[in-house]
C-alpha cells in the first residue's frame, strides 16, 4: 500500500486536481493577459495590436510611478515596522498569564477575520477631520496643530491607509510568530540561562535564528499581501485625492475597469506579476536558505 502511494502515477493522480486548479486560475489567465497588454482594448473588444504602446504609456505616466512608490511605502512599512512590532507583541504575548494570553490571541485575530470594508469604514471614522477620533484626541490633549485631513492630504494619505492595513494584520502576524516561539524547545533557553545569557541575548541568539522559517513565511505573506493591497484603498479613498493613494493593483483596476483601457490595465498586470516573481525569487535567494531542524 505504501509502495503504491509513492509511485509516480499515484503522485500524478493526487497532484492533478491542484495542478489543474492552479493552471486554470493562475497560469492560464496570464496568457490572454499578456496578449491583451499589446492591444488597444476597451473591455468589450480589441481594436488591434499596438506593440509596446501600452507599456510606453504606463512608464511615462505619473500615476503609475506614484502607485509604485505608494506600494513600495506600504511594503516597507509592513516589513520594517509591521514585522518587528508583531515579533515584539509575540514576545509580550508569550510572557502573559494564560487568561490574558487567550484574550489577546482572540483580540489579535479579530481584525484579520473581519471584512476589509468594516475595517476601512472604522478607520475612515477615526480619520474623519471634524469629529474623528484621531483629530478629537489631538485637540483634547492640546495638539490641535497636529490634526490633519488624513485622507485628503496628498502628502500623508498613503500613510493613513497603510496604518489601517498594518493594523488589520498585525495581530495575525503576532500569532504566527507566537506559534513559532512555542515550537522552540525550552531546553535551549535553560542552557542559555545557565551560561549567563539574559532575555535580550536569548532572543537575539536563540529565538530569532530559530524563527527564521516563520520569519520567512511572515515576510513573504506580508510583502505579497502589501503588494496586492487594493480593498483598503478602494473603500477609504478611491485612490484619491487624484491618484495620490493608488497602489499598483488599484492602478491596474483603474485603467482596466474605470478608464476602460484594458490593454493598458493588462500591461500594468503583467508588470505587477513580474514584480511579484522578482520579489519571490529574491526572498528565496536571500532569506532562510538553510532549513534549521531542532
Amino acid at each position, binding site marked *: 500500500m505504501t509502495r503504491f502511494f509513492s509511485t*509516480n502515477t499515484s*503522485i*500524478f493522480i493526487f497532484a*492533478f486536481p491542484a*495542478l*489543474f486548479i492552479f*493552471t*486554470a486560475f493562475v*497560469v*492560464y489567465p496570464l496568457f490572454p493577459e499578456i496578449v491583451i497588454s499589446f492591444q488597444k482594448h*476597451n*473591455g*468589450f*473588444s*480589441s481594436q488591434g495590436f499596438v506593440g509596446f504602446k501600452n507599456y510606453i504609456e504606463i512608464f511615462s505616466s505619473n500615476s503609475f510611478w506614484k502607485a509604485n512608490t505608494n506600494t513600495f511605502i506600504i511594503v516597507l512599512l509592513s516589513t520594517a515596522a509591521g514585522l518587528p512590532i508583531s515579533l515584539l507583541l509575540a514576545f509580550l504575548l508569550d510572557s502573559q498569564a494564560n487568561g490574558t494570553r487567550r484574550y489577546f490571541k482572540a483580540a489579535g485575530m479579530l481584525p484579520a477575520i473581519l471584512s476589509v470594508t468594516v475595517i476601512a469604514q472604522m478607520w475612515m471614522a477615526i480619520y*474623519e*477631520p*471634524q469629529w474623528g477620533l484621531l483629530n478629537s484626541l489631538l485637540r483634547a490633549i492640546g495638539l490641535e496643530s497636529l490634526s490633519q*485631513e*488624513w*485622507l*485628503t*492630504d*496628498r502628502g500623508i494619505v498613503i500613510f493613513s491607509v497603510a496604518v489601517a492595513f498594518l493594523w488589520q494584520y498585525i495581530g495575525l502576524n503576532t500569532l504566527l510568530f507566537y506559534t513559532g516561539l512555542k515550537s522552540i524547545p525550552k531546553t535551549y533557553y535553560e542552557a542559555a540561562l545557565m551560561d549567563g545569557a539574559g532575555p535580550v541575548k536569548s532572543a537575539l541568539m536563540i529565538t530569532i535564528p530559530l524563527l527564521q522559517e516563520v520569519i520567512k513565511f511572515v515576510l513573504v505573506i506580508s510583502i505579497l499581501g502589501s503588494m496586492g493591497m487594493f480593498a483598503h484603498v478602494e473603500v477609504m*479613498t*478611491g*485612490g*484619491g*485625492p*487624484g*491618484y495620490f493613494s493608488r497602489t499598483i493593483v488599484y492602478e491596474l483596476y*483603474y485603467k482596466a*475597469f*474605470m*478608464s*476602460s*483601457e484594458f490593454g493598458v490595465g493588462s500591461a500594468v498586470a503583467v508588470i505587477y506579476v513580474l514584480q511579484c516573481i522578482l520579489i519571490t525569487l529574491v526572498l528565496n535567494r536571500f532569506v532562510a536558505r538553510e532549513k534549521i531542524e531542532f
Partner: protein
Amino acid sequence: MRKNWKTGTALIMSLLLLTACGNSGNTPASEQTNTAPGKEKEVVNQQPVKLKLLTISSDQARQTIMKEYIKANLANELPGIEIEYEETSDVGAKMKVYNASGELPDVFWSGADYATAIINAGNQLNLEQSITDSGFINKFAVKEALKYKDGIYALSSGADAYFTPKIFYHKDIFQANNIEIPTTYDELVQASEKLLEAGIQPIAAPGKGGWAPAFFMIQNMIQIEDPAVAQQLVENKIDFTHPVVKNGLDRVVKLAEMGAFGPGAANVDYGPAKEAFTQNKAAMYMMFSWELADLEANVPDVGIFDWPSAGEKYTPGSAIQFWGSPLAGYAVSAKSKNVEAAVKLAQYLAEQDAKYFTDTGSLVTLDVGATSTPAPLMQANIDAYNEANIKIPSLTVMMDPKTSTEYSNFGSLLMTGDYTSDDFIKDFNDLWLANTYFE
C-alpha cells in the same frame, strides 16, 4: 523525465480544456445577428417568454422603481413574459463580462460611459424602427432627445433631461445668520465666509472621486460667467485653456481654499454629503434636482436657488445644465433570441420609470397618462427649467470613458484647495484634446 512528461501533459490538457471553454466575445459586427422585430420565429406555444434583465440599482429611487413598479406591475402589463432579474450598481463592469462571454442579457441598462463600445461592437439594438412601427415613439414629447448618431439605442422616461444642478439651502440657517440668497459669485463667497465664522460648514457636495466637480461644479462655475463658453466647451470647440474656463476652475479652487466645502471635502461620498445637509451641519448643498422631492419631503426649511452670476452674460436661472444622454436608458441586445419581446420589455421598463418620476412630482418626456401635482419647490424647479433661455448638456457625458474618469480624477484634486487651475489644465487638457467621444 517521466514525471516531467506527465506534468507537461497535465498542463497542456488544462490549457486545451480552458481554451475550448473560452469565448473571445469579439465577433465582428457584420457577423452578428440583428434580427428585425417581427421577422423572428413566432412563439407558437403558450409558454411565457423568458428574458434576462440586467438593470441598475444605484440609489434608493432605482430600487423603489424595481420593487414597487417594475416587479409589481409586470404580471398585469406583460403577462407573456418572465424575467430573470439581475441588479447592480455598476452595469458597465457587468456588461464587459457578459460581452466577453458572448451571452448578453436580453435587456440591460445602457449608460453613456460604456454604451458606445457595445454599439460599435454591434451588440446594442437600434430600436428606432421597432418603436416607430409600434407607435411607441409618439409617446415621447422630445423625440430628438432619443437620437444618437444613426438611431435610437436606449429608452428612458426622459426624467434625466429635466434634472439640473441646484443649490439647496437651509432657510433657518440663512435667516439666523442674516444671509440673503446670493445672486453673484462674490455674494456666495461672502455668505460662505459668514457661515465659516459662525462655525457652520457653508456647502456640502460629494467630492470623493471628483463626483461634484466632474458632474456639475466645474461646468456651472464656467457658465455663470459666460454660458456661451460652456456651450462651446460641451461642443468640443474650445479647450480648458480658454480664460473663462480657467476662471471657472479658479472659482472652485477659491471655495475649496477657504474651506467652504468643509474639511476633507475631496473624500466625502455622495451619502455623507447629503447627510451633512439634511442634518443641518452644512448650510448649502450643491446637487442635481433629482434630490429635490426627497429633500422637500424631509427637510422642513429647505429652499433652492439658481447658480449665482459671475459676469454680465449670465443672470441666475438664464442658463442651465441638464443631465441625461440619449444613451442612458433601457437597451436591447442585438443578440437576443426574443427581440420582439425584449423591445416590449424595454418599453415597459421605460414606462415604469416614467410612472415613478411622475408620481414623485418630477417631469418626464415619456407620456404614461399619469399626472400629479408637484410640490411647491418642485413646481418652482419646473418653472425655472422652462424659463431658462439656454439649456446646455452635461460636459461629462460628452467624454469617452478614459477622459471622463480622468476628468473626475483631477476634479477631485480641485476640492483639496492645494491644486490650482493651472495644475488642472496642465494635467487634463491634453486628455481632453484626445477625447474620442466626438470622433
